[in-house]
């Protein structure tokens, strides 16, 4: 039982309640800020002001959007499955909000004369709690798509589910090596370990990189935002959702971003501990009291900024490229890295005992196997003999869609023909995302129902 846990168990109930409420509020607030920040930053990056009307710097913009969203028409398609359709958003939101509880926001402090740590719950398997919440969230997505009774949401749901779980593997494997070094699954212990051994981001750089990538994939963010790939799938799994139900998904998505960022902070960036030069000041005075909250906030902010930055910088992946990245690069890399870490570490601990060579052979063997698998072309064995196998038998949308280049002379009319679809696509993107993904134009569009999205013009 580690010190944090000891402190936490004798928390009085009122303190626990306060903490709970706070930790519940934090992600939501961050979300609201995040949306605004995102739109501003991207706006800047795209040479445009971004929202700047509501409040100073338009800081109230997303609040306004949220309120507006609450008063939109709530629609349940006739083909939808009543209860599941109703349940899905809840199922998506709850775990997202739950995950933050195990993240240590700071060290030991005194609140109203009560010694405690800035952490809501210290459980032995904290990391697993976060991962568990992440995977439970998938149910929300999947059920939402399934229950909508409409092809696009279903396909979108499948995609996002597939992508979440695929990247969860890589994420898990990346975390394993952290756990291996920290020797514990409890978040606070991991922070402690980093205070001794230094940031795992540096110590386990590959794992950190893998985590960052999979973190973005896990939260369905650009460049991995395929489930909501407007041009292919309209709005993805929540196409049919509107009003507060939609808001729930939206919230869940952003809260998840916050959560994974917080996890990244905790596991790789030293958690609430002060960064290196500062940590030396006054033999770690900056690691005491309420200071850690600041460091934590900064690191979290950095991670969130990364999200925005990446989104602005990178184009969206194609689905096959995306899966390829997840399964054929991240997973093997994470696995191999873990093996290397394990072998080296154990070798170091057990001073060159006899079975050493066994392990070396073993590791080499593994590496070889992986290497071989890389050497070979990534295509399936050629189907030379035997009848041709058709694919899954399901009409997948063509993934390498080439827009036929229109003849020069009739180009005007051609574009005019294509325009409505384009507009429909574009504005419909605005419609569901009117709470403000990139384009401001849509933010004013009535974001009520998908059907209206079509005629919600600029």
């Amino acid at each position: 039982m580690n010190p944090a846990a000891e402190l936490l168990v004798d928390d009085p109930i009122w303190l626990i309640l306060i903490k709970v409420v706070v930790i519940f509020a934090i992600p939501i607030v961050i979300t609201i800020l995040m949306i605004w920040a995102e739109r501003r930053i991207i706006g800047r990056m795209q040479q445009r002001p971004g929202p700047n009307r509501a409040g100073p710097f338009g800081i109230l913009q997303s609040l306004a959007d949220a309120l507006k969203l609450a008063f939109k028409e709530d629609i349940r398609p006739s083909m939808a499955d009543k209860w599941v359709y109703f349940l899905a958003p809840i199922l998506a939101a709850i775990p997202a909000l739950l995950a933050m509880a195990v993240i240590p926001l700071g060290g030991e402090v005194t609140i109203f004369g009560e010694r405690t740590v800035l952490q809501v719950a210290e459980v032995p398997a904290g990391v697993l709690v976060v991962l568990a919440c992440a995977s439970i969230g998938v149910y929300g997505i999947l059920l939402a798509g399934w229950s909508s009774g409409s092809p696009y949401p279903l396909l979108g749901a499948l995609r996002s589910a597939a992508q979440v779980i695929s990247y969860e593997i890589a994420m898990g494997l990346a975390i394993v090596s952290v756990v291996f070094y920290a020797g514990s699954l409890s978040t606070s212990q991991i922070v402690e370990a980093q205070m001794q051994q230094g940031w795992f981001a540096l110590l386990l750089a590959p794992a950190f990189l893998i985590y960052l990538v999979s973190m973005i994939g896990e939260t369905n963010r650009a460049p991995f935002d395929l489930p909501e790939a407007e041009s292919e799938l309209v709005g993805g799994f929540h196409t049919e959702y509107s009003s507060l139900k939609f808001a729930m998904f939206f919230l869940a998505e952003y809260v998840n971003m916050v959560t994974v960022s917080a996890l990244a902070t905790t596991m790789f960036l030293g958690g609430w501990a002060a960064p290196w030069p500062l940590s030396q000041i006054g033999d770690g005075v900056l690691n005491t009291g309420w200071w850690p909250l600041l460091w934590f906030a900064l690191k979290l902010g950095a991670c969130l900024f990364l999200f925005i930055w990446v989104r602005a910088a990178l184009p969206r992946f194609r689905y096959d490229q995306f899966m390829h990245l997840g399964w054929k690069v991240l997973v093997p890399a994470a696995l191999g890295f873990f093996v290397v870490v394990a072998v080296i570490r154990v070798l170091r601990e057990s001073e060159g005992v006899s079975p050493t060579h066994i392990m070396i052979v073993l590791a080499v063997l593994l590496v070889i196997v992986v290497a071989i698998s890389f050497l070979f072309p990534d295509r399936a064995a050629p189907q030379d003999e035997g009848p041709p196998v058709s694919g899954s038998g399901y009409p997948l949308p063509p993934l390498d869609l080439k827009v036929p280049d229109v003849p020069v002379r009739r180009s005007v009319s051609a574009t005019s023909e294509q325009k409505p679809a384009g507009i429909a696509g574009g504005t419909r993107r605005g419609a569901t995302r009117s709470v403000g993904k990139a384009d401001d134009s849509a933010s004013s569009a009535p974001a009520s129902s998908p059907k209206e999205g079509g005629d919600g013009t600029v």
Partner: protein
Amino acid sequence: MLTSVSVLAQSESVESYSIDWWAISPLLVVFLAAFVSVLLEAFLPRSRRWAAQVGLSIGTLLIAAFAMILYINEDLRVGLGLSEEVPVDPAFADATHQVAPVTTFNGALAVDDPTLFLWGTLLALALPSFLMIADRSVEPGGAFVAQAALRPGSTQDRAQTTVPGMQTEVFPLALFALGGMMAFLASNDLLTMFVALEVLSLPLYLMCGLARRRRLISQEAAVKYFLLGAFASAFFLYGIALLYGFAGSVQLSAIAQATAGTDRSETLLFAGLGLLVVGLLFKASVGPFHSWTPDVYQGAPTPVTAFMAACTKVAAFGAILRVFSVAFEASSWEWEGVLWAVAIASMVIGAVLGLTQTDIKRMVAYSSVAHAGFLLVGAIALTDDGLAGTMFYLLAYGFTTVAVFGVITLVRDSDGEATHLSKWAGLAKRSPLVAAVFSFLLLALAGIPLTSGFMGKLAVFSAAVADGMAPLVVVALIASAVAAFFYVRVIVLMYFSEPAADGPTVSVPGAFTTAAITLGVVVTLLLGVLPTLALDWAGIGGFIS
């Protein structure tokens, strides 16, 4: 979980594991080969897989057998310079044991004389089965589908009945199943037994669905087998859980000690035992738990059926024998009665329902249910003779049944094997040899003297009578008389009745199937005339606890 695992780490002296590599070398060889063959699947071009896989599988069996011989015969091992001289354990220096029985992997696996015998049996039985699986002469391209992914009935599917290729994944699957069987009957604690059970079952589920002809039936068999099998293994598992609650451990020996003591909850013991046994009996397709057997035997590709019928029975009964005689001997008088009933039920069901069958594979399936009953008779006689008899019976029955299915693959008409009995009318005219072989095998199943079947029955029943189960034996004998009727019926069909106009043709088997059938027949005859060798080996020693 964190705490638990670390505590585990400190509590058990993990470093003190000593693994007797020689003892488990056959097992390792098989599993290793299974992995290798998966890699072959991955890296070889389709055209070269078949040859490589066949070579690997057969080679594996031989190597594993050789490894076992090396383990048994220490002098040879030393002679080959593979291991240094080890002092013989005086306790087992006498001639009765070939090698000192050991438990390894921290008591997870027990390699004792029954284990060795049954391992030998499994390897020996796997050889003809693999040969049949590999055969491509009887059915062009082998009995297995070229592309399991294709939807039955689709044009591509209809096209693929003619293409030469086959789904070579069968070989790794078969190897895994074999390894699972070997681990199953060697496992000395229930957890290992459970894992081994799944390792042997899952590949079989898949193999059932890979038939080239009649794919719907085949897939259906796979589904049924899978659902029922999973159901049964759930029971098995719950039984383990309860026994764990009863004894506080899943080591068979620990359970035995617990049963010896009286201070514990009988309810847990018997509930657990019951559920456990249900799972085991299901795998052995005994008595009322046989419901999957006929469907699966009929639907699965015949080579796979042969493999299942022979090897799965060996594994399952090996486990049953071990569990009963190691863990529950102390409480035997409490459950023996129930098993009497089960055995009787099994024999009666098998014999009576067998009479009504019109499909030869179903018929053999029911006969296997009846035989399971006979085996159970020997298994509940917890004596050395019972053990030896049952193991001998397993060996004899295995070879006979493999050969039977081998012959069944030969009799074909336009759409695959002609398994309907009416098609077999007057087969003796078409090909006297096949008919003669088949009737010999049937007589062996019926237990006519000078066949292995008779010797097996004799061994099992004499043990049973000696253990005071005379009434059961009488029932068994009557059951086998009834069962004899449907064997005789087939002989009558083949010999005495006129062939149908559009009867099946008897395709000339290639080297593999021929070898398999010949092996089966020869062993059946040999064990019938000179059973001594096998009997002595089977009788060497009992389980270690």
